[in-house]
């Protein structure tokens, strides 16, 4: 059983990816992924309302395989988007919030983002935060009850690849989880995260369709941890988090 906590749908010239639901299902079938948590690229890089509407339609035929995040590029579009976010969770079955930090253009811990973090905490849904470990720490200090999945666990250019900093942040704050997807396959990275914060706080993600999900699964299965720990990372933890809202 595999649940992927980090998948993208839609189009991005910047990332050179153009994927619809069928492409993702085909890739998931090839790699043995049962369920995917999916965020929309249009919402992430162009138009929040349009992108979230698109993903709502795109996953409608695949609700047993695809769980949508509500995606925002910034909190600065205000109340209307905040209301939309809540409605998409309560009425349309969205089960996460995706936020993206691109300093200095947009930061995830600016004051405008806080209402979204607080709302996600109130709705008891996870927040997939493409960010540094330090930004996750900052949000955790302000909204301790939020559930933060630190995308790439620091292995992205914005976080300078510093997975040690992300692991340290997760060690400090029990609400921070580490998402394993990235281009980095450092020897001992998964083992270190498990040793420091426990397998219960590490989640498998693929970043499909940018990265190869089969390799991302192997990052977990070929690490020197127990099978029980691998199972928690591959699906157990995210399945448990998704049940927090009480609608799973």
């Amino acid at each position, binding site marked *: 059983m595999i649940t992927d906590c980090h998948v993208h749908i839609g189009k991005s010239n910047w990332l050179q990816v153009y994927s619809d639901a069928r492409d993702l299902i085909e890739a998931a079938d090839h790699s043995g992924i049962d369920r995917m948590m999916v965020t929309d690229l249009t919402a992430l890089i162009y138009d929040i309302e349009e992108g979230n509407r698109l993903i709502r339609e795109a996953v409608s035929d695949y609700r047993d395989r695809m769980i949508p995040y509500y995606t925002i590029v910034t909190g600065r579009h205000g109340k209307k988007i905040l209301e939309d976010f809540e409605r998409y969770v309560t009425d349309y079955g969205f089960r996460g919030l995706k936020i993206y930090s691109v300093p200095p253009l947009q930061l995830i811990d600016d004051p405008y983002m806080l209402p979204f973090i607080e709302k996600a905490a109130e709705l008891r849904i996870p927040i997939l935060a493409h960010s540094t470990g330090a930004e996750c720490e900052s949000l955790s200090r302000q909204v301790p009850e939020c559930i933060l999945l630190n995308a790439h666990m620091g292995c992205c*250019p914005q976080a*300078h*690849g510093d997975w040690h900093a992300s692991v340290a942040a997760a060690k400090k704050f029990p609400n921070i989880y580490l998402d394993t997807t990235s*281009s980095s*396959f450092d*020897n001992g990275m998964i083992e270190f995260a498990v040793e420091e914060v426990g397998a219960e706080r590490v989640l498998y993600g693929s970043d499909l369709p*940018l990265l*190869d999900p089969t390799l991302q699964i192997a990052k977990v299965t070929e690490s020197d941890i127990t099978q029980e720990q691998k199972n928690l990372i591959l699906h157990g933890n995210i399945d448990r988090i998704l049940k927090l809202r009480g609608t799973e």
Partner: protein
Amino acid sequence: MILDVNGYFGSWPYWPMKGTDPNAILEKMDRYGIDRVFLNSLRGVFTDPEEGNAETLRAVESCPDRFSPALTFSPYHPGYEHFISLLKEKQGCLLKLFPLNHSYQIHEEPRVEEVFNLCGERKIPVLIPYRLMMSWRLPIMNFGSMGGVIEKFPQTHFILGSINYLFELQTARSLLRRFSNTSLETSAMMAYREVEKLVAEFGAERFIHGSCIPLQNPAIGPLKIKDANISDEDKEKILSGNLLKLMG
């Protein structure tokens, strides 16, 4: 058969890393079916290429049926003449360069040019990693001037290593298109279906398997070739055939 053109051993200065001695590397090679690795000592990268080469040769002598030497040099090291003698004498080696770590430019450097000429005469491939390993923390080479270098030494074969995706891959593609004496090493290619796309564009003959053992999880290197939707014949070329052919 699986050959690995990109291996290291020795101390890793930036964070603790287990399993970096040759015996531990052998264990991992057995686990993932890697028959032979071209190794170079990290001492040669960080402190002294001559001492590093000596360590590399000792490691290879301890297990000549599994290890081959990747020698390195710096044009500013006092042992340059000795290195030239070594390069003239050694069979079955490759040259691996670290201009960022040794603080030199790869173009218009007379000693580098002398070495490239010698490599061309002796059919010694030259591996130039874009980065030491696929980590966003580490500095990257500027491959912008590589075209002029490759063009100047048509008898020498250049293997461009540790290239990931998007912009950096675009540069590498341009070099592959322009110069037949160029191959790409695969250790940092993590994008979805990248191997398939590249093989379709350039042919499998232009790619050489590397895992970046032990800095990266060595499970991933062979897996990305074996799992790619390309023919068995193409897989064999990438995993071993192309390097065997280059080494004569």
